């Protein structure tokens, strides 16, 4: 197992297991809990991010820390409805082509310069288009972007794109200062060492391998906020040490991969701490067994269906993830829009699996082996090694012999991208909308020699047509109908064996309030978070 896992790839999101206890400002006052000003939040970041400029770097830890420094135009509720941030309000034209945003007045950059519409146009059309591959896929749909005045921005699309607003959260397109970046080499701009944003906290100090310290932005545009004096992220490479730091109160909050799944039950019993799994709705990572649909046996849907029947997903949820996250039921995660609960992938049924394999003529030999294939382990820490070890045993029960292949991150990505694998384990974010995060995995047009595309090589013209239609449909209801159809088709073809809707525990001191109130959880700006007495 590779000890300090090089952070869970991008931030991983929990399905909304428990209903989000949305503590709005009013409710907090109503319960007589006055938001208290002051106090520094000590937390942990694992592993240490390379740098803190969103867009240039979109790795998990960067998103968590930098979302306190930068802000997006909008954010999302746990139900993935857009909410105002730097954009006070927005309107969409009748034909769904033009979006006009009215920006907040009097917002200042940390270096004192005024925040204007120019900054937004530059960030969207130049900065993220250049450095941010995920945003680029959506921003390329914009035909024109104009700033009629200092506080209005208008985007005109080439064609209607219903989920367009979901990209404007800070984790998608953080608004960066034009006067710092325009005309420079974004990746090597010296200003990257001291990030300048509009957010509630300013960059103060960074001791590599030790800690990152942000302090309150006194000229923050929301009056009286932020309540916290500052936030300090500690870098603690050893998992046992992180657990110890949380247990002894040295830190008041842990997020994402800080705490290993097997340690979570221990903290659920600790009275002064609260364990939350929600706050990942926008990301909704879904893990699955990626199958190379080009190879013998693996290209036969019956074989893949038998593999699906062989896997006990609730065992995985309970024994490997200790209840953090829940079994997957459909290619679209439950937290993502247009999830159709009526669609159910093949249940755990070893007998059915063996029947299917018999149907294919794959009889067990002397050692009881019907067929065998290789599985490339996912090199992201111990829990994934345990998962592939469990899958090998599960497949063996139905007569499928699995040989594991061990790799490290670089080797895994190269072999995945070059289709040099039989099966492996993978997980991808859904970014709130099937068009943004799900389509890329299943459409024929996206079969590329690049990681996180349709590397499985699944191709079904009917599915392509449905995804196309849903992408261009203007009305949400029309898209819902199309996506239900797609989910039924995919479950029937079962190109991949979906496993888990992953979740990540956010564990924090009970006195810390308003930690998780949005669909992005700990990736919000924390301007309304406070330490009660």
């Amino acid at each position: 197992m590779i000890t300090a896992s090089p952070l869970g790839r991008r931030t991983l999101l929990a399905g909304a297991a428990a209903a989000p206890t949305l503590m709005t400002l009013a409710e907090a006052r109503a319960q007589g809990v006055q938001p208290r000003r002051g106090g520094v939040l000590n937390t942990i970041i694992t592993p240490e991010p390379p740098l803190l400029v969103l867009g240039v770097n979109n790795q998990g830890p960067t998103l968590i820390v930098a979302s306190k420094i930068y802000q997006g135009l909008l954010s999302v509720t746990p139900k993935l409805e857009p909410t105002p941030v730097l954009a006070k309000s927005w309107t969409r034209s009748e034909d769904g082509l033009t979006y006009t945003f009215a920006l907040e007045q009097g917002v200042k950059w940390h270096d004192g310069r005024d925040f204007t519409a120019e900054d937004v146009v530059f960030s969207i059309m130049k900065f993220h288009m250049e450095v941010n591959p995920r945003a680029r896929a959506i921003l390329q749909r914009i035909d024109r972007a104009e700033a009629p005045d200092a506080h209005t921005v208008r985007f005109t699309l080439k064609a209607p794109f219903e989920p367009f607003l979901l990209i404007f959260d800070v984790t998608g397109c953080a608004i960066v200062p034009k006067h710092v970046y325009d005309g420079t080499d974004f990746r090597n701009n010296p200003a990257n060492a001291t990030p300048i944003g509009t957010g509630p906290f300013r960059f103060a100090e960074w001791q590599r391998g030790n800690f990152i310290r942000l302090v309150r932005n006194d000229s923050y545009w929301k009056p009286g906020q932020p309540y916290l004096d500052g936030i300090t992220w500690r870098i603690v490479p050893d998992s046992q040490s992180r657990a110890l730091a949380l247990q002894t109160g040295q830190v008041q909050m842990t997020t994402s991969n800080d705490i290993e799944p097997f340690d979570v039950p221990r903290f659920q019993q600790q009275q002064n701490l609260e364990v939350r799994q929600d706050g990942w709705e926008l990301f909704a990572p879904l893990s699955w067994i990626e199958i190379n649909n080009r190879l013998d046996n693996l290209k036969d849907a019956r074989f893949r269906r038998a593999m699906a029947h062989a896997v006990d997903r609730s065992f995985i949820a309970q024994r490997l993830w200790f209840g953090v996250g829940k079994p997957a039921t459909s290619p679209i995660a439950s937290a993502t829009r247009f999830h159709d609960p009526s669609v159910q992938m093949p249940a755990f049924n070893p007998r059915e699996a063996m029947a299917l394999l018999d149907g294919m003529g794959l009889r067990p030999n002397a050692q009881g082996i019907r067929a065998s294939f290789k599985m490339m382990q996912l090199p992201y820490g111990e829990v994934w090694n345990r998962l592939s070890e469990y899958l090998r045993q599960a497949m063996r029960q139905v007569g499928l012999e699995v040989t594991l292949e061990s790799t490290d991150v670089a080797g895994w990505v190269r072999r995945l991208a070059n289709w040099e694998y039989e099966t492996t384990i993978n997980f991808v974010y859904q970014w709130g909308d099937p068009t943004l995060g799900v389509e890329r995995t299943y459409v024929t047009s996206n079969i590329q020699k690049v990681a996180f595309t349709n590397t499985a090589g699944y191709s079904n013209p009917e599915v392509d047509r449905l995804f196309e239609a849903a992408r261009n449909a203007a009305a949400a209801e029309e898209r819902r109908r199309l996506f239900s159809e797609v989910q039924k088709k995919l479950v029937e073809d079962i190109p991949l064996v979906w496993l888990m809707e992953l979740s990540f525990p956010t564990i924090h001191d009970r006195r810390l309030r308003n930690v998780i109130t949005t669909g992005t959880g700990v990736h919000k700006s924390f301007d309304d978070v406070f330490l009660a007495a």
Partner: protein
Amino acid sequence: MTFWRRFARNLGAMAGLAILVLVALMAVLAPVIYPFSPWEMRGIPFMPPGEGGFLLGSDSLGRDVAAGIAHGALVSFLVGGVSTVAALVLGVTLGAVAGYGGGWVDDAIMRFTEFFQTIPSFVLAVVLVAIFTPSITSIVVAIAVVSWPPVTRVVRAEFLSLRSREFVQAAEVLGRGRIAIMVTEILPNALSPIIVLASLMVATAILLESSLSFLGLGDPNLMSWGFMIGSGRSVIRIAWWMSVFPGIAIFLTVLALNLVGEGLNDALNPRLAGRRGALPT
């Protein structure tokens, strides 16, 4: 005094041999005592030793630690043995040619050996395994590549001293070929230090394999002792037995090999052993 009687006189060596036989027996009988794959999930995870039908407890997936240790023995011997043989073949050949050949051949080989010894052997092993992706073959190759230099040094020293011995010169005078002289005249007399070194190398190889598996560079399809310790490392607070028992297995095997090595050393060159001269106490 026959070789065996001199070996038996060394109590430590006999103890070592006993342990080795036990471990070998465990490796052979593993499929009988535990007729299932060590990877199988037999019960509830994190069961302490003695409970839930687990002699030495269960690991994070409910697999039997005892079965793992039994099946792991074969892996350790396999890796240790094969890599040592490979290192010996390479080391002895280079050492012999350097020691007997002399001149620039000797210099070239020695520079090459020194070059290898300047790079920390464990670092090189890790890099090699990472490059050829962890599997039983890449581990054996990596261990062999880092453990041949000491063999070359020892064999070269032996050949250098034996080359000037008169029975070798006699063979030269008889007109025997260089290869014949190296193989039939010198090598048989250089065997005893090589045999002693071989037993110590198997021990070091097992240690190296367990270290590599501990860092996650082990063969994922082979339940090895190093792998068990590695997978138990992060849960050491709640399941200490996952790491402790495989460690004991490694310790006993490596200790046994060292003791046997010392026994062989005493038995093979009695001159050295006999001279346990009394040091002025």
